[in-house]
Every structure is written in structure tokens, then in C-alpha cells.
């Protein structure tokens, strides 16, 4: 990291002094111990289950370059993000100098000036000082922030703040010793001053000038002291890393490469599960049932808390903190690993440890209950905000989902409100106890054919309109169903519904940990869809959209599934929907992003574009948290079926934010969000309309062109 230790002697001979020999010893010990620590830590990952993460190397490398090296996620937050990127990029640049300094410690004649053309070498020297200044400025600011004005996400029980302060202090000391080594060298080595100092080492040169009064001998001694301080700090820092949260430095880039949270694969799909597998338990109740990648997540985490700061449950005062999920997993791994995989190079040490006093307490504990409680797990809305925010691509949600599976599948433990949901799903094929016979009641008199009727006539409709349970049974959502059906009819789309043959695909059960019930329902749905040889499905429920499009392939169901926001946008773009040209007054509207549409499927523009195309005069405003940062409505992850007793209600938090935009109408694109927003608006007694985007479009349909489908008794 240093350039200041450049020796006076320009000879290339290996003439080692006593100092060089001493440093060689230090270096060998330091590198050996570091290597031992790393192996010891990596060995603990063997506790986890195997998982293949070597597929799609191109995509993974892209993630590494964008999320890792370009710091795309960390830069989502301005102040701390820029500072972190400065330290990170600074270290990348300074590491080249560090390599030189360590080599020079044992081989005084070594130096980049012998390898590089002079102009390039001068640039290299300049880069070292410039980045050292940048790093020093950044860590100073970060230290100030930690100590004087810590943001909320850096407070709390699970955070190692002292360690963070020490690390920042060490980094600052590294930069300072870098400068002082150069400055004392400037004084001590007059002979090379002309060639080795100047504009390309502005700080060492200026600082050296200021120390001009020192005698040569004193300067020489101070230079050595400074050099040793710097070198020892580097090696000490390196060896401390594997033992604290700053193991992050070693693991983050690796973790980003192995992570699936930004692809490859389908983002947000829950892990497939083989129910026929001969296993003792399902899901994960301890670290052995998580994969090595879930465990690596713990070592990549540096407790920055961006996940927890974005968590709707945490924001509204629930016990859940996604950061704690990860640090608990890491700490439990550190606690348990010696009993499972033993100590490095000690044959039979795991067996011996299991017999030692105190072992039973550790072995009787488990991640579920002893570290992570049921209440934390059920507070999650599966909104993916934590996963989205994590700068090192940790998957907090996968751990939560695996633990939920263990609770439900092994122990039948879930909030009591969930039992009727499971039972209705089993008996009625919907999360509510409505009669399946009433599923298509909304369509009475609307001239909407079922797949069965179409097939009878020998027709095969282009698209299946998947209505979903909300759209079939919920009174408010049924209006969305009718609105969307009217748009399809007005655009002369050849479509049909399944009618009474539609049943829930099981997504709520899956999110609630009941994989068994999910697979029963999903397989049933796939059977029905395949029976009608369905190819394209359109639905206005983002949960159905995500489940059928992204997770059905796990069970062999492959269909093109389109969300109505995208579908309507396409129809409007192709001018297939006859709209009125009279737009009325200019309406201020705020669109609320659905998690399963946005963060799960990256659909942010289609609903907004749909609104703009249907209502060119609309004034679309954005709430503070929007798009990939949008706040969940509170209904995801099966929370729709669980009472929200703790803290502030999430839908109130979100509605307040939307109402604060001054919007007269809140637009949604999800029936669950609709329920939550309608409830929020009513509780706040706000004079705001909540409309689905299809209702906005349907209201603009040109009556002259609309078919006359609304004649009852067709």
C-alpha cells in the first residue's frame, strides 16, 4: 500500500539486512496464520448442505462486476454509499502499493519503477497518494458518523459497533503511516529526492519539506518506525478479519459471485423441495439444514443494516430484523461448527468435543427458537426489500422461508389464524371458506366463456384470463375482474376463464411454509391448465403472476404468464383499446408498487405507462419510497391471513406516505394491495380513491365502441 519505503539503493541485488530478515519472519508467520484462519472458517461451511452454484459463470461474473466492483447497490444510499465505494476502490488501488511494500520488506531492491516506464510509474505513485487521501477523508467521515450521529440502522443489539470503530481507526492509521513513511524518506534520502519525489507524490513531498529540520539519522529512524507500523498494521488487519464481522472484506466479492439474488435463475422463486426425499425433517431448523451458501451469507454480512432499514415489519415496530436473521445464522454456525466438523487438522475432534462438558447445551440448542423466534419469522411479508438492498447479495428471505417450512412441515406450528386458511385451501381450493361453486359468479351476464365452453365449440382461446381467488370472491377485487374483462372484450381479445375449474395454485400455502399443501394445489392447477393445453395466461394478481410464471416450472408447468399491467400496456400501445378522447380534469395520481410485480419481477414501468396512456392528462406523482424501494402494503408472505397485532400497521404506514404525495387517487396493480390501501384510506379517513390500473383504463373506454356485453342473461 506504500510507496514511501522505496529503498535508496537502486541496485537489484538481494542484499538483505537484519530488518529484512526480521520482516521475512513476520511475513511468513502472518501469512501462515491468515491462511490457517481462512481454512478454519471455510471449513465451517461444510456444516451446510451442498448446493450447486457454478452454473452461469458469465452472469455471475457480471454480478461481481456491477454489484461487487462497481458497487451498484451500495451506491443506492448517497452519503455512506459514496464513502464506502471510496474506501473500497481506494483499497483496490492501494493494494498494488501494499504488494510492493511487503515485497520490499524482504527484497529491498524491488520496486515498480524498475518494471514500469517512468511516466506510468509516476501515475501509479500519484494514484497511491490520491486514493490514500480519498480513503482518509471517507473513513474520517464514517468515523464521525458512527461516533457522533449514527443512523438508526447502525444502532441496536446485534451490532458490533466497537469493532467497526476500531477497523475504521486502523484504516485511518494505515493512510497516515503511508504518508509519514514517504515524508521521512524525503528527508532521509537526499540522494533520490530529485527522481523519487515531485508532483507525482505531492503529499510526501510537501510533508517532507515541512520535516526538513530533522537530522538525517532521526529521519531515517522515523522512516523505519513508520514503515514497520504500516506493514504491521496491514498484516494485523489481515489476520483480524476472519474473527470478526469484517470477514466481510474477504467474503463479499465471493458471495456476490455465488449469489442468485440478482440471477442467474428465476429471481424470487422459492427453493424447490422434494417431498418424497428420505429426510428426517423438512426445511431448516438449524444450520446443518441450510446450504453452504446460506452460511456464507453470514460471513459476507458486515451488519450495515440496509436490509433492516428497508424492512416493512421492522419499520413498523415488529420484532423482525433481517440483519439479525443473518447474524444469528452466522453466530449459531460459529457456535455449532466445531461440534459438527471439528477443528482443523485434529482427527476426531468433533467427536471429542461432543463429549466435552457443556457440549450438550450447544447441541440441544438450534437456530430455530433458540436464536430466531417464531414471531420474527411470521412477521415477514416476503417483500424482498431486504434482499434488494443488500450490497453483497445476501438472501435473508431464503433463510426465513426455510425456517418457516420447518415450523409448519415438521411441527405444525403456525399462527392460529392460519389454520382456517390451510383448511379452506384444502377443502374449498381458496384461502377463504367460499363455495367453489360461486367462483365465477362475477361473470354472470357478462358473456364471458369458460375454457370448457370454448372447447365444446371446438375453439381454443388465445389467452386464459386467470381470475385468482381475490378476483373471484373478494367484493372489491371483483370490480377489478369486471373492469379487466371489459377491457379484454373492448379490445376483442379471444379469451376465456376456467370458471369453477379454477382453484388456488397454492402460493399462499407455500409462502406460509406449507410446501405439501402448495404442491398438492399447484399440481392440480397444472393438470387443469395442461388439460386445456393453455399456453398464455393473463392475470391481474401479481402473486398468481409470480407463482404460475416463475415457480410452476419447478413442478413441470410451463406457460407464458403476463401481468395485466403489461398486457394492457401492449393493447394500448397497439391501439387496440377504444378510448374516449375526453379526459376530464387533470387528476393527481400516485402509483403504489406491488412487491411481487416490482421487486420479484422487475415490472415498474408497465403500470405507470398504462396509466399515462389511458389518461394522458394524469399527473403521476411518486411517494418517497417507490419502485424497487417501494414499501410493501403488508399483505405479502401470507400476512394477509395473519392478524397484525404488534406495532403500527404496515398498510397505515404506506397509505400515509401515499396520501402525503397529495394524490387524489392511489393506483394499484394487485388485489391484495387494493385491500390494504382501501383499509388504510378508510382508517385515515382520507378523501382518496383507490383504483386498480385496469379500473382507470376501463373508465376511459369509449362507450360507442364497446361491445354490449353487459346485457344480463346472455
Amino acid at each position: 500500500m506504500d510507496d514511501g519505503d522505496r529503498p535508496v539503493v537502486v541496485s537489484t541485488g538481494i542484499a538483505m539486512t537484519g530488518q529484512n530478515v526480521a520482516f521475512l519472519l513476520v511475513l511468513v508467520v502472518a501469512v501462515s496464520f491468515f491462511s490457517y484462519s481462512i481454512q478454519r472458517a471455510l471449513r465451517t461451511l461444510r456444516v451446510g448442505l451442498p448446493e450447486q452454484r457454478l452454473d452461469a459463470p458469465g452472469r455471475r461474473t457480471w454480478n461481481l462486476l456491477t454489484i461487487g466492483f462497481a458497487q451498484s447497490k451500495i451506491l443506492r444510499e448517497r452519503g455512506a454509499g459514496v464513502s464506502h465505494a471510496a474506501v473500497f476502490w481506494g483499497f483496490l488501488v492501494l493494494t498494488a502499493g501494499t504488494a510492493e511494500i511487503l515485497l520490499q520488506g524482504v527484497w529491498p531492491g524491488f520496486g515498480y519503477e524498475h518494471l514500469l516506464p517512468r511516466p506510468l510509474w509516476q501515475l501509479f505513485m500519484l494514484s497511491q497518494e490520491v486514493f490514500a487521501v480519498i480513503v482518509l477523508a471517507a473513513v474520517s467521515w464514517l468515523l464521525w458518523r458512527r461516533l457522533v450521529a449514527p443512523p438508526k440502522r447502525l444502532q441496536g443489539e446485534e451490532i458490533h459497533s466497537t469493532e467497526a470503530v476500531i477497523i475504521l481507526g486502523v484504516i485511518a492509521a494505515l493512510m497516515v503511516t503511508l504518508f509519514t513513511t514517504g515524508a521521512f524518506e524525503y528527508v532521509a534520502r537526499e540522494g533520490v529526492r530529485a527522481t523519487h519525489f515531485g508532483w507525482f507524490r505531492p503529499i510526501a513531498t510537501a510533508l517532507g519539506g515541512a520535516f526538513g529540520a530533522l537530522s538525517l539519522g532521526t529521519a531515517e529512524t522515523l522512516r523505519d518506525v513508520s514503515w514497520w507500523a504500516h506493514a504491521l498494521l496491514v498484516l494485523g488487519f489481515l489476520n483480524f478479519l476472519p474473527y470478526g464481522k469484517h470477514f466481510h472484506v474477504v467474503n463479499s466479492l465471493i458471495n456476490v459471485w455465488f449469489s442468485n439474488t440478482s440471477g442467474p435463475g428465476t429471481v424470487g422463486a422459492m427453493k424447490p423441495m422434494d417431498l418424497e426425499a428420505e429426510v428426517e425433517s423438512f426445511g431448516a431448523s438449524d444450520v446443518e439444514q441450510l446450504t453452504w451458501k446460506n452460511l456464507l451469507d453470514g460471513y459476507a454480512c458486515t451488519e450495515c443494516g440496509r436490509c433492516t432499514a428497508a424492512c416493512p415489519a421492522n419499520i413498523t415496530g415488529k420484532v423482525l430484523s433481517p440483519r439479525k436473521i443473518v447474524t444469528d445464522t452466522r453466530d449459531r454456525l460459529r457456535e455449532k461448527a466445531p461440534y459438527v466438523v471439528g477443528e482443523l487438522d485434529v482427527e476426531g475432534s468433533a467427536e471429542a468435543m461432543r463429549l466435552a462438558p457443556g457440549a450438550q447445551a450447544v447441541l440441544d440448542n438450534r437456530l430455530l427458537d433458540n436464536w430466531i423466534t417464531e414471531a420474527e419469522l411470521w412477521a415477514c411479508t416476503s417483500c424482498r426489500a431486504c434482499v434488494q438492498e443488500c450490497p453483497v447479495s445476501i438472501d435473508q428471505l431464503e433463510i426465513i422461508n426455510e425456517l418457516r417450512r420447518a415450523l409448519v412441515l415438521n411441527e405444525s406450528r403456525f399462527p392460529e389464524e392460519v389454520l382456517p386458511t390451510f383448511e379452506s385451501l384444502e377443502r374449498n381450493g381458496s384461502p377463504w371458506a367460499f363455495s367453489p361453486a360461486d367462483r365465477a359468479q362475477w361473470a354472470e351476464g357478462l358473456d364471458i366463456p369458460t375454457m370448457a365452453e370454448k372447447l365444446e365449440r371446438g375453439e381454443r382461446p388465445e389467452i386464459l384470463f386467470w381470475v385468482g381467488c381475490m378476483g373471484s370472491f373478494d367484493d372489491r377485487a371483483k370490480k377489478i375482474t369486471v373492469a379487466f374483462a371489459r377491457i379484454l372484450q373492448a379490445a376483442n381479445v379471444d379469451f376465456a376463464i376456467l370458471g369453477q375449474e379454477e382453484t388456488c395454485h397454492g402460493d399462499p400455502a407455500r409462502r406460509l411454509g406449507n410446501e405439501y399443501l402448495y404442491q398438492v394445489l399447484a399440481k392440480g392447477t397444472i393438470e387443469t391448465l395442461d388439460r386445456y393445453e393453455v399456453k398464455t395466461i393473463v392475470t391481474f394478481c401479481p402473486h398468481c403472476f409470480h407463482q404460475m410464471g416463475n415457480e410452476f416450472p419447478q413442478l413441470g408447468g410451463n406457460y407464458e404468464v403476463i401481468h395485466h399491467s403489461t398486457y394492457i400496456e401492449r393493447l394500448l400501445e397497439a391501439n387496440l383499446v377504444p378510448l374516449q378522447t375526453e379526459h376530464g380534469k387533470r387528476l393527481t395520481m400516485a402509483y403504489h408498487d406491488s412487491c411481487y410485480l416490482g421487486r420479484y419481477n422487475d415490472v415498474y414501468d408497465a403500470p405507470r405507462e398504462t396509466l399515462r396512456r389511458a389518461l394522458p392528462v394524469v399527473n403521476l406523482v411518486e411517494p418517497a419510497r417507490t419502485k424497487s424501494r417501494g414499501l410493501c402494503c403488508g399483505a405479502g408472505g401470507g400476512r394477509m391471513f395473519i392478524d397484525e397485532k404488534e406495532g403500527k400497521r404496515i398498510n397505515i404506514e404506506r397509505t400515509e406516505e401515499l396520501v402525503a404525495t397529495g394524490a387524489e387517487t392511489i393506483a394499484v396493480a394487485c388485489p391484495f394491495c387494493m385491500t390494504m390501501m382501501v383499509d388504510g384510506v378508510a382508517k385515515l379517513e382520507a378523501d382518496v380513491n383507490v383504483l386498480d390500473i385496469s379500473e382507470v383504463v376501463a373508465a376511459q373506454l369509449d362507450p360507442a365502441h364497446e361491445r354490449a356485453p353487459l346485457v344480463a342473461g346472455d
Partner: protein
Amino acid sequence: MKIAVCIKRVPDMGARFKIGADGASIDETGLKFDMSDFDEWAVEAALQLAEKHAGSTVTVISLGPDSVQETLRKALAMGADAAVQLKAESVPAGGFAVAQALAAELKDGGYDLILFGRLAVDSAAGITGPMVAELLGLPCATALCKLDVQGTSATGERQIEGGVEQLAFPLPAVCTIDQGLVVQARYPSLKGIMAAKKKPLASKPAALGGVGVTITKMELPAERAAGRIVGEGADAVPELVRLLQTEAKVL
């Protein structure tokens, strides 16, 4: 302790029923079936007793066509140890025929306790349990909301109008279980479902007794007339009162 629980497979009562073509049965198309609620509580009570008394076994018995095996598997998934299907083409309407078949099965089973739900939610007769007790010559305690076993005898409680009745009886005995004896029947875990596949389920012909009672006709309740809005505000009150007195006759 050996416990037997007799369970019945019934349609989900939330469904919209239709009368079958013969006019004397319900049309089963589209109906979902599950264990009768009271029977579920009886299974739960049996499992809790078995957990309390080490070495106990719980056997579930159901009479009917092969579809009852699904209901029996559910009880096995909840934790019962063995299941017996008394195979019959259909479940006769007369409880006595069923009771005779069950009694024949239970007679030599050596059970200490035979549990039933207080009634089956579809037929709501509540007589099969007491008839089995009579046929086996055993004491019978009905509609229990509390049940404890002490060695070779048991105590129970039943809710009666305005109070509680405390009972004591020797074992073996037949009990029917009311709502409230258990808080909730357990939800079968996947572990339980997997284990249930390997548990014994015997199927044997039901020794049905003579059918004494048959259903000759079924009718759906009359559709409720649509609600009527009389008017709005204070002006509508006299008319509303008049209608409540003359038409609805509730005042």
C-alpha cells in the same frame, strides 16, 4: 391403554348442497369431504390421552367405501397408530346398522376406551356411539367436555344447561366427545403425512346389521326472500315498525 376412535367422513358443510337425482340423497359432485369436526376432536382427545399414558395405542375406525381411507390416513397423519376400514358401498342412514358393524369390530379388540364425536355434522343424529355401548354392554358417557383416565376408571364432565355434570365410570367405556374438550385438533405435519403412509390400514367387509331406517326424501330449505329497503331517515320508521309488527311479526 388401548383407545379406539370411530370417525366419519362427511362433506364440507360450507358447500352449497344439491339434492341428488333420486331425491333422497345429496348430489356429491364437486363436494369436498373431510373428517367430521367432532370426530377430529375425538381423535385429538385420544392422542392427548395416549401422550399422557405411555404405551398407549390409538386405532381409528371408519365405515364406508374406499374413499374413507383418505379420512383414516388423515387421522394416522395426526398421530393415530393404526386404522381399520369397515368396507361398505355406502353409509346406511340408520345408525343401528352402523353401530352393529362397529360393535362387531370393537368387541374383541380389547379396547379400554372407545371414542366417538358427539355427532356427525352431516346427519347430526348422535346415536351411533350410545348404540355401540349398548351392544357391547359398556358404560356410556356422552357429550364430554372433559375426560381423564385414572388406571381402570375414568372421570368426565359434560356441560348441561346452566352448569356442569361430573361423571365417573369404569373402563372399558364408550365416550362421545363434545366441542371444548380440546382447544383444536392438531394440523397434520408433513412428517406425520409421510409416516402415515407406512402405518397399517386394514380393510375388511363391514358386518352391517339390518337397515331399519331409510331416507325417503330430502329437501333444501326454502330460499330466503331478498331484503327490502323500506326507506331512508326518520320518515321510514313508522312504516318499518308497521312491517315488523304485521309482516315479520317480531314486535
